[in-house]
């Protein structure tokens, strides 16, 4: 049923057609040729794994990013979208995951932001504006008064205001990026009703979501992206879960139950985590981690993996749950305590949370290791030769490409910056090292070096946790993989069962009883 022709049976003349859009960022090909056509009033789904190119295409349509190749046709007329303003004028509206409002303004002012307003004697006639907006606000179900402040409104209400904003601009296509990510079930239902209502009135919706249930329920057609390409477009009855997953993954999916589990007896347990919870992102997570083991944590963006890492590391406090480290109770109140107890973290946001970008390579390497480079604890002057020797050793061991150790770390490439963040912990030799998206934005060469390094650290007895959104990364690297969905661990893959397909399929797990670790 999978059709390779993206343009099949658009019964109506399409509102917008994007053909063979290509876009590269630096050397990375984000889109290699994707196509999409959306008819007026259609609810069109867009799915694909993390990094499949959905966000890039949305940015192209929004005029935020200029494509390298391809063309966009609106109402049969080829158009160019050099700025977001052009996209708005053509009737496209974009609602992103992080909704941006101006907090000091009221609902009405936010709805009309950037729209020419009626004036009397040069002053905005807000009463007239409110009369114009009121019917639209009522239609989408905004409960808050138009003159109320936007402060303290719920995410759901923010969505409604954004939809209203789109309709006031006479949008003919509304692009919704993960609309239900932070909505409750009841709020999501309301949103679905509005989407259906929009569709009935001729407004098209491009519905981008990881949640396949919603896609199956709402969409009349679904485009699937994989690795920056269009891999097909499903229609009507052909939109089924297996078909969607197969298209997202590319190839047949073997069922999880069939996958053999190899219980791996290993060395001592380093870290146990029991019923760790911090609502709403992390929900009763249990696992144990042994020395010498590389444990992967897979799942979709927003599944609660980074939040779990922060709990273990003491960067956030859990609501409940207990941990042990080397058999002793472990409940760090802050990262300082976690580091002292023997943890290390390579954070997801390298520039924002990992590095002091203007400081030197040596500074960044030694910042977690100062006790080892002072002359003596009583005379805590930095021993410069020790500092230099230890820094050079890490630079050599990890093959960090840098002119010298005094070069500002911001001048290094992404891969080399990442090596510096990892290298910082090698000097401390932590018991447990957590790497959050260790190869994001890293070139292929550095990526395999980092992988080799992780295996090496495990071989030396370190317990390693690797969080990754790339399904390809975990099979290469891990002895065992936990898959998280909406804050829970839903499955555990071991040994041969860790395949790209198994990781992706489990990431889309919905409903049913999550399988918990049974070893605890």
């Amino acid at each position, binding site marked *: 049923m999978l059709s390779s022709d993206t343009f099949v049976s658009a019964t109506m003349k399409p509102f917008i057609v994007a053909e063979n859009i290509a876009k590269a960022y630096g050397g990375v090909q984000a889109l290699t040729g994707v196509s999409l056509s959306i008819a007026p009033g259609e609810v069109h789904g867009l799915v694909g794994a993390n990094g499949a190119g959905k966000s890039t295409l949305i940015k192209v349509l929004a005029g935020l990013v200029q494509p390298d190749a391809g063309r966009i046709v609106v109402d049969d007329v080829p158009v160019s979208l050099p700025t977001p303003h052009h996209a708005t004028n053509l009737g496209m509206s974009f609602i992103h995951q992080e909704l941006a409002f101006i907090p000091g303004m009221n609902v009405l002012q936010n709805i009309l932001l950037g729209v020419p307003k009626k004036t009397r004697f040069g002053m905005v006639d807000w009463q007239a504006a409110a009369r114009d907006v009121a019917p639209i606000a009522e239609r989408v179900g905004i409960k808050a008064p138009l003159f109320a402040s936007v402060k303290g409104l719920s995410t759901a209400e923010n969505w409604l205001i954004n939809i209203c904003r789109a309709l006031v601009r006479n949008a003919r296509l509304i692009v919704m990026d993960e609309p239900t990510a932070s909505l409750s079930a009841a709020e999501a239902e309301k949103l679905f009703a509005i989407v259906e209502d929009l569709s009935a009135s001729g407004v098209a919706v491009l519905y981008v979501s990881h949640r396949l249930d919603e896609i199956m329920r709402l969409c009349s057609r679904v485009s699937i992206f994989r690795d920056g390409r269009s891999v097909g477009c499903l229609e009507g009855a052909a939109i089924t879960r297996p078909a969607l997953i197969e298209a997202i993954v590319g190839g047949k999916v073997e069922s999880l139950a069939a996958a053999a589990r190899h219980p791996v007896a290993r060395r001592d347990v380093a870290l146990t985590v029991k019923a760790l919870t911090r609502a709403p992102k992390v929900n009763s997570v249990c696992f144990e981690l042994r020395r010498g083991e590389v444990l992967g944590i897979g799942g979709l963006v927003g599944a609660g993996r980074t939040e779990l890492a922060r709990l273990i*590391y003491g*960067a956030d406090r859990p609501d409940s749950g207990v941990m042990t480290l080397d058999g002793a109770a472990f409940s760090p109140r*802050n990262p300082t305590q976690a580091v002292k107890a023997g943890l290390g973290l390579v954070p997801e946001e390298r520039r*924002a949370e990992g*590095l*002091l970008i*203007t400081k030197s390579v040596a*500074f960044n390497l030694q*910042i977690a290791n100062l006790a080892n480079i002072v002359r003596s604890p009583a005379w805590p002057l930095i021993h410069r030769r020790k500092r230099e020797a230890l820094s050079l050793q890490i630079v050599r061991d990890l093959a960090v490409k840098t002119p010298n150790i005094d070069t500002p770390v911001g001048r290094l490439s992404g891969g080399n910056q990442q090596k510096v963040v990892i290298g910082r912990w090698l000097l401390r030799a932590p018991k447990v090292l957590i790497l959050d998206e260790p190869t994001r934005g890293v070139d292929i060469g550095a990526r395999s070096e980092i992988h080799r390094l992780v295996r090496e650290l495990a071989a030396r007895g370190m317990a390693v946790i690797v969080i990754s959104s790339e399904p390809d990364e975990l099979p290469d690297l891990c002895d065992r993989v936990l898959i998280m969905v909406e804050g829970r661990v839903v499955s555990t893959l071991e040994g041969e069962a860790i395949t790209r397909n198994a990781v992706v399929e489990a990431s889309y797990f919905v409903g049913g009883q999550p399988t918990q670790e049974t070893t605890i």
Partner: protein
Amino acid sequence: MSMVMSGGRRLSPASKAALGFFARYATIIGLLLMIAVFAFLSPRAFPTLSNFTNVLNQASLAMIIAGGLTLAVIVGELDLSIGFAASLHGVLVTGLIVANKLPIPLAIVIVIALGALIGLVNGLIVTKAKVNSVIATLGVGTILTGLAFAYSAGVPIVAGVPEAFLQLSLGRWLFGIPNNIIIMAVVLGGLWILVERTALGQEIQAVGGNPAAARLAGINVDRIKILGFVVSGMCAALTGILLASRLGSGTTSAADSYLLTAFAAVFLGSATMRDGEFHVLGTFVGVLIIAFGFNGLNIFGAPTFSQYIFQGAILIVAVGLASLGRMISES
């Protein structure tokens, strides 16, 4: 304080290098130029050893308070309480000596400990109660002004100040070098070693550079920030004491104007040799620029109002240069 290059234009490497050099060394070149011009215009009065010693002596108090402020701004906070605090400390130290008849060294130790306590309070309000440091220290500073008036009833403590206390600031106990200069050199030298050469200093720099990254690297960010405020508070206390000694009296609001001088110097310093990063040596150069500027204006008999204009203009130029440096290093 971040700025965007107008129109997002890319600079050519050559012009970037030239602009970068200008941003880094403009302050030092400006200082040398100023000295040269004054020396040329007033070859008798200005370029003499006694005038230079005099300038440095005068500038020492500003250098100490600005050195302390440097620690606060390195950890990423502003301390607006220092001027008011120094005024209170001046009143207090005179009061303790004159009214309470305390031995001079004990009075000094008490007042410096109080300075540390004020810094601690500032630090706790900022890190634990999460009050923006501008507001917190402005509030604390205003309270301190109130306390100074309450303590002295607004009347300067003049009578009965012992000669020994005056000699603290006016004396030349070592090789004929004014005490102020020696105390300043010890304080700034100590601060420089602390920031640039110790493990603690690395943590101080890390917290100022990127608090989120410092925290995840295991540094206790709150404790380091509090330390910055404590050092700032102690330096303010020392400045207040030396000022009271120099004036021979404890006068409410005597040291208030040091606030602006210290800020101008600290920002000038951040534009000196480094791309918009605060550092102790830079602050030293910053105070020198302001001190020589005032000295020159004095020698030429420029009216008082010109000093305010000079200092305000210097502050703006300094922040502009620091931003330019940061912009270039980040582009």
